[in-house]
């Protein structure tokens, strides 16, 4: 009860900035898209402008996880589910990284009223603290339809109403921006796992850190092959894999050993590049928590529901002979995971660590750890 009250008191403190309990905010904000379309709504985040790549997500829960996911760096996030903010924002320890990485947030109906026992602040307050602008009251389905057709489109949130320059965040090395500056070590144990952090979600680290595991978290371009380790995980991250040459080089080096490797999202693309395959842009990117991915286990097609956020896919025709497709997307047939035919090198395009989204493929971490244990014995 106490925390519920806190939630509502928090709201009252800010209430001067809003019309009383009506749901419409005073200050106007505009979203400009590269194709010339403009959407006007009300501000509920920081009163600043922002530019970035506009992307949408169709998840119905998980705004906290998405906003703090470093993969969203440089991106203006459009939520297709209209009501956002309902359960507020919990303590930092539940985030996917310390701060909001998304450049901006666009929703149809920001819920001023929030209510949850874990809530520490409102979404609005969190956005303001992180100096991230947000717009409510716009037709997010209309935006989604535009983005779906164009895929990558630059956008601009303007708090002055005026249109500025579109800046492509992908021109920068975004991975370098979000990757940690130096190596850190977590946990204790006989098994050492390297996590190449290209902007990793916390839940990947949480999923790996278990009894007997020592986790070495290294910057994206760190030559981890110098470390004594038992297995390596290449994390998710923002932007274009082609600017991560150093990481690709390190992975290629690691292929010299037999040690198990698991790639996730951006990590899968880096592994594909290291193996010699190429990637292409999907007609309709996957930005949701309901992507069905299939693999054949013992002659039976098993399909899992996965959480995804990517616009590029691996071209299966370019896979070297000793690699094979592991998972395919049941909707459009695109590659969702690859594996080496003999070595324990596997990677998935989706997020087995979930957060947000379904936990169906969390077993991949267990499988990876089993591989690591087995490889340690031999």
């Amino acid at each position: 009860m106490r925390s519920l009250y806190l939630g509502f008191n928090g709201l009252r403190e800010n209430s001067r900035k809003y019309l009383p309990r009506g749901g419409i905010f005073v200050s106007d904000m505009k979203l400009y898209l590269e194709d010339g379309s403009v959407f006007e709504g009300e501000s509920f985040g920081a009163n600043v402008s922002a530019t970035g790549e506009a992307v949408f997500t169709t998840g119905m829960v998980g705004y906290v996880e998405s906003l703090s996911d470093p993969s969203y760096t440089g991106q203006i996030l459009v939520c297709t589910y209209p009501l956002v903010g309902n359960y507020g924002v919990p303590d930092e320890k539940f985030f996917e990284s310390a701060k909001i990485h998304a450049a901006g947030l666009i929703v149809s109906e920001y819920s001023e009223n929030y209510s949850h026992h874990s809530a520490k602040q409102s979404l609005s307050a969190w956005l303001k603290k992180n100096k991230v602008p947000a717009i409510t009251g716009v037709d997010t389905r209309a935006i989604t339809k535009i983005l779906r057709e164009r895929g990558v489109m630059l956008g601009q949130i303007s708090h002055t109403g005026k249109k500025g320059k579109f800046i492509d965040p992908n021109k920068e090395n975004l991975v370098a921006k979000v990757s940690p500056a130096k190596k850190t070590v977590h946990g204790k144990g006989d098994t050492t796992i390297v996590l190449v952090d290209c902007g990793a979600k916390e839940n990947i680290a949480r999923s790996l850190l278990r009894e007997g595991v020592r986790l070495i978290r290294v910057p994206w371009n760190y030559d981890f092959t110098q470390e004594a380790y038992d297995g390596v995980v290449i994390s998710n991250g923002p932007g274009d894999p082609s600017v991560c040459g150093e990481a690709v080089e390190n992975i290629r080096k690691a292929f010299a050993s037999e040690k198990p490797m698991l790639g996730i999202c951006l990590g899968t693309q880096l592994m594909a590049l290291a193996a010699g395959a190429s990637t292409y842009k999907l007609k309709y990117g996957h930005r949701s928590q309901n992507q069905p991915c299939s693999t054949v286990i013992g002659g039976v097609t098993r399909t899992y529901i996965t959480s995804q956020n990517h616009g590029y896919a691996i071209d299966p025709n370019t896979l070297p002979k000793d690699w094979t497709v592991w998972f395919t997307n049941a909707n459009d047939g695109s590659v969702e995971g690859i594996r080496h035919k003999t070595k324990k090198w596997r990677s998935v395009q989706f997020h087995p660590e979930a957060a947000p989204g379904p936990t169906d493929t969390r077993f991949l971490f267990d499988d990876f750890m089993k591989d690591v244990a087995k490889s340690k014995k031999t």
Partner: protein
Amino acid sequence: MSTPKKILLLGSGGLRIGQAGEFDYSGSQAIKAFKEEGIAVVLMNPNIATVQTDKGLADEVYFLPLTLEYATEVIKREKPDAISLSFGGQTALNLGLLLEEKGVLKKYGVAVLGTPVSVIRDTEDRDLFKNRLKEIDVKTAKSFAVTTVKDALEAAQVLGYPIMARSGFALGGEGSGLVRDKEALSHKLGEVFHTNKQVLIEEYLEGWKEVEYEVVRDKDNNCITVCNMENLDPMGVHTGESVVVAPSQTLTNEEYHMLREVAIKTIRHLGIIGECNIQYALHPKTGDYRVIEVNARLSRSSALASKATGYPLAFVAAKLALGYSLPSLPNSVTKVTSACFEPALDYLVIKMPRWDLNKFENSNKQIGTEMKSVGEIMAIGRSFEEVFQKGLRMLAIGADGFTAHANGNFKIEEYLKEIKTPTTTRIFAIAEALRKGVSIEKIHQLSGIDLWFLAKMQNLIALERKLKRGTLTKQMLLQAKRAGFSDKQLATITKSKEAAVRAKRTRLGIRPVIKQIDTLAGEFPAQTNYLYLTYHGSENDVEPSKKSIMVLGSGPYCIGSSVEFDWSSVEALKTLRAEGRQTIMVNYNPETVSTDYDMSDRLYFDELSLERVLDITEFEKSAGTIVSTGGQIPNNLALKLYENGVKILGTNPKDINRAEDRHVFSALLDRLAVDQPAWVELGSLKQATKAAKELGYPVLIRPSFVLSGAAMSVAFDEVSLVKFLKRATAVSADHPVVISKFIENAREIEIDGVAQNGDLVVYAITEHVENAGTHSGDATVVTPPQRTYLETIRRAKDITKKIIKELKITGPFNIQFLAKHNTIQVIECNVRASRSFPFVSKVTGHNFIEVATKALLGKNVKGNYQTLELDYVAVKSPQFSHGRIKGADPLLYVEMASTGEVACFGDSYHEALLKSMISAGFRLPKKNILVSLGGEENKVKLLPSLQLLSEMGFTLYGSEGTTDFMEENGIACAKVHKITTGQEPNILSLIEHGNIDLIINIPTRPLARENEDGFVIRRKAVDLNIPLITNRQLAEACIIALKETGGGTLPCKPWSAYTPSDA
């Protein structure tokens, strides 16, 4: 398993509380899914008003009781190699379990499709269920399954009161409830153990959130959750009684996916194949959970989930039962993506229950763990406020939204009390409390409703206040529309007119946008025809269709408006399609077939209000609108739509109005020299009492423009007249009320028909078994008529011709007559399809709606339709849900009380009557019959029948007066004392312990509620599930039929064996 060649599909029978029209939807989808594979389908379902029993769906249809006896006969005759139990609700599931238990399935080599029987038992038997979940460390509520009162009391002692008592194998939470102390528990269990062998005594999870997931699993262990739903009312209110939102609104990602993971784990462990539903309690502060139950079949929730997401659950479940895997099935909305996915919604839906408890005098308004609602609505939108207010209007109970009701109703005096102890009007009590300044924290404390929902409700009250104060600027108007305020509400708030508000907002360019439901939130392009309107948007997803015909649906199921009007709407759609017309359906009832994705070219899942239909019409510019198939809601809209320039097909709405307005219609009959009961229109109460005295009591009070006799009453004296008048004027304040002489001992006949340009095209005559005074919806109806003279039929037909000529009817109509001796009088005329259209269509073999729809399109429909000379007889019986409405008197009355109907065919009237009665839950007596007859007339007239019973060897028990009378007339009868005497045996003890098979209790006057014992007898009969007859004519007919047929298993023939093959 190899693909079966012939599947027996069990339906759910007559609609009743806890089991409504949703199973017509699921059954129809299953039949289509099976037929697509080239498999023959045999359907057993006595619900004649369903779409699934239409020609062209199943290969054979059996209108027979869903009992072990009849199902065994059908299996013997049809020799199916598989049976499907999951599409006919709890009725089909229980029957299936019984067939298996008795070895029938094994004996005849019938395999159960989908979820295996052992798994169904694991989910139905509370103890097995708990243990199965314990195996995988999934938490269930702490509980004990018990089979005796003693064990129950001990278990309750261990858990500590209050506790929840739940009965296994029950639908809609029947027999379940919160029990606060030992006395209440022993009382309750006495009843429950009469119908149930097992009861679960469970920890009470007060205030926990209630959440459910719809889960689909295939034989390869692929498992998905299609939708999750959150109840606005926390634990303690049955999910069928709760306001429900989808997707959940107050769950975090972590909670959402934790429960999803438990769902998948549980369903995999249980081994369900197809569709099921899992219900949880979730602690609002700790996030702890309990699994409450799993329903291993299609359910009301799955129908809702299917309509909420656009995912065809029943269709997919049927395919999975045949052995398909989820990834091998396509998403039927996008056509290109996989069915193995979880829909993403970019809108939210709200479901609200519709109650009709005020139809039952003495009934309790409180809601709880037992289901009492008779129907539901679903509203779609893009903000909570929008769907919430839409939903409240959709209930069609006179509410204009959450607040600002034009009729000034919904003021709740004891609002805090109703918030604490939930009633059917709790939502309006919250509105009242918020208006009075009660804090949402206080309301939360009292109700347990999450603050998030309450804050949204508070937004509405605050906005109303703001609207009252300020001028209606463009921004204010837009804000109000986005919060779901209707033009009518805004007119009430700003003291304006609905039309003026509409004119202003269209001038300001404030119009709703049309959005698609595509299952993927726009991520992939989809060719979906599933649409809704919202003010949260800047563009339409679709272009106007060309020259479509719009059909207005029936709205929520309620007493008097049920699946039969959905059937009529669906038949209209089918005919329009066959005639090559593009169709638009407007309806918002998630339990219907008319709202299925494949029934129309465009489905607007939205309000049936003047405002919304005009919004749609202005956008679509449809070529015509059909208002005559959806019952009273579209019928009442006809004139207003017409006045706003909407093209109504068929009878001119002005003429519809002439039939609906009691005063105008009565005057019209006078002018046509058509006889009718003496009538008078009411001005003041004083005039009314004077007029009633002149007409002579009893008198009938009838408001206009109402369905199913809402507020229709028979008054035997001035006291009851005054009481009823007050009720009538409250129901229909702006429409005239007429009182007429009530004719006692008259028979009632009805003509259902179709006319074109005022000429009769086709008609059918049905005859009521009960005398006038029983509402036509509660009457047992037979066709062809058995007791009506040919001359009477000829006269009725003549009068019909006169009326349809005068009203220039084109389309369906229904006229009700009173017949006494050789006189015939008209009581009412409906210029629309009536409740009995599916019955007469399926019995005569002529689809009346098909004819009517063609007539509406201006096609030549003249022909020779034979409807009287039939070689068989069909009887339709009412299906009551009195067991659910505690405290209500299960007496037939002028106001309708039945929730559904069933019908059966026979080679004789007797055969059809008994089968029909059994289908509605009657059981033929084996030995003991209790008779209690009020008044001399009943006794004298029933004497020959009682003699028959005695001759047939039944043991008769009688109340004091009845026994004396029988003994005087030489019939052996054991006397039982009045309850008040306290002597043994008395009526109460006999009913409770006497193994009574049948109770015949006829009150002195058909409508009076005179003596206490009578009420107790009837109520006990219902509570203990003992067959009860309260009408003399029905008792007579039933007894004669028993004698004539010998009381054994009656012939089991399919529909096709009766009706002409060309129909």
